[in-house]
């Protein structure tokens, strides 16, 4: 189904160079991490491997030993009842979990072969490579639409011409361009909820991460806005690896290639989405997807 904004068709091809962060090396004031050197395979998409992940809030054991692989260029959904640890687990992937006072994580999370918890790894680089979209759209309130998308790029010292180009590219990629191109200098929070969320997604993809994590990105949006974001996810997966936490099983069925069901901090089942919903292997999965508990 074609999205209403038709400019997007021309862009996707340009985005295929993934190994370096776009632009000529001379223009990049900040290094693009030399991914090949770091064990992150060039050209292809990037997978996330989680092994033996435990996460704690103080003494509370929220994630109890998780092993998953999120395959490259696929959308993996994570479903489960409230409090099962899905958000926590996802936040361990871009190391946001440790920002909470008293929280810690153990185990390994790898982007291809790069252990992002390794010693000597800079957490801010990890977060640039693994982007996150949050449940409540959170554009920076004091910034314009343009500045919001540019925020991450400015951090890495992208110069102004390159910057403008990349901001426009991002806005096109998320299908916002048509709606905002005449008001790029207006405040980001002046947009509707759905637009704000797409703005946040534009902000995230502007820095060209390898992976995009989404923590219930549509739960604050109305159905139409939700649909647009889901269409966007479908488009984005050709360029990124996407992990989406959702409490909405229909959404998982719509967007995800494979689905993980979590319960009580553990992975109960991980299978292609179709299989999870039509013939789940585990009895608990079956009870959850048929709505017997939730």
């Amino acid at each position, binding site marked *: 189904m074609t999205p209403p904004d038709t400019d997007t068709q021309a862009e996707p091809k340009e985005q295929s160079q993934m190994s370096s962060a776009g632009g000529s090396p001379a223009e990049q*004031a*900040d*290094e693009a*991490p*030399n991914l090949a*050197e*770091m*064990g992150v395979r060039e050209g292809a998409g990037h997978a996330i491997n989680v092994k033996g992940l435990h996460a704690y809030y103080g003494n509370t054991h929220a994630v109890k030993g998780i092993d998953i692989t999120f395959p490259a260029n696929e959308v993996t959904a994570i479903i489960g009842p409230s409090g099962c640890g899905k958000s926590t687990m996802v936040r361990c992937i871009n190391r946001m979990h440790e920002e909470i006072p008293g929280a810690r994580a153990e185990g*390994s999370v*790898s982007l291809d*072969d*790069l*252990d992002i918890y*390794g010693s*000597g*790894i*800079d957490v*801010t*680089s*990890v977060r640039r490579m693994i982007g996150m979209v949050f449940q409540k759209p959170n554009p920076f309130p004091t910034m314009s639409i343009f500045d919001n998308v540019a925020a991450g790029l400015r*951090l*890495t*010292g992208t110069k102004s011409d390159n910057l403008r180009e990349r901001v426009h590219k991002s806005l096109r990629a998320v299908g916002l361009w048509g709606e905002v191109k005449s008001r790029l200098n207006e405040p980001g929070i002046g947009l509707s909820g759905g637009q704000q969320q797409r703005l946040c997604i534009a902000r995230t993809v502007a820095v060209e991460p390898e992976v995009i994590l989404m923590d219930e990105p549509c739960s604050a949006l109305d159905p139409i806005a939700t649909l647009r974001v889901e269409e966007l996810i479908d488009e984005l997966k050709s360029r990124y690896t996407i992990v989406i936490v959702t409490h909405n099983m229909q959404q998982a069925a719509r967007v995800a290639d494979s689905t993980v069901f979590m319960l009580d901090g553990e992975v109960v089942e991980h299978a292609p989405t179709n299989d999870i919903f039509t013939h789940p292997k585990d009895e608990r999965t079956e009870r959850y997807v048929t709505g017997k508990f939730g």
Partner: protein
Amino acid sequence: MSDIGIAAISPARRRKDRLMRGMLIGGTVIALIPLVLIIYYLLLKGLGSLTGSFFTSDPTGSFFGPPGGIRSAIFGTLEIVALASLISIPIGIGVALYLTEYGNESTFANVVRYFVDVMTGVPSIVFGLFIYIVLVLSGIGGSFTGWKGSIAISLLMLPIVVRSAEVVLLLVPGALREAALALGAPRWRVVTRVVLPTALPGLITGSLLAIARGMGETAPLLFTVATANALTFNLGSQMNTLPTQIFQDITSPRNAIVSRAWGAALTLVAIILILNLIARAIARRSRLA
């Protein structure tokens, strides 16, 4: 895992981050230096004066001979601030009660809130001038008297009491009030039997802080109480107070008197610090849920 190089972030960014963090820490350290220095010098120059007679004798006021102690100053401060507290604390809590229990968001209440707030910014000398004009110049009840100073100080303390009391009263859970009202208690009973007792520690804290503030003020006293040397318990006369005593002594050419100023300053700061710490201890121990 595998042998991987350090994931690069621009060293410039790293440096900037460390630099700015260092500056923020540095700024905080700079902020604390004056505190340390003041306490250091107070102790250095003031401890020596704190003999027994320092507290048990009054300043002699004579240019030659022994300068005397600060007894009348201490008592004067205690008396004047006590009266000021008796005035400002009940009234302040009363206004706060009005704001939280009866006025709420009404226009009038907001106006009151606004002006009480603005009152905090009024310089203390202006309050002194007010009382001077209204009470001293007009000669009501004598010219310079202790109680007029109390009124000036109470004007100063009032907004502090109102503000802190309002914050505390608002912390009393609405559910508590509603439960009492639902049991059929009239509002005034809810206030006296439920709200005030629950808020009491916070109210005490706020009052202590207001008192500490009141004790340190000099300017208003200059215009309303003037000064004296002898110990007196008559608030209808001129009195000595610690701040005015210190103020007078600072500019004295006699070292002994300047030393007395340091001793008196140490005493005053000690009292104020103790009040502050008690207030914070109470606040910490009994936090409203």
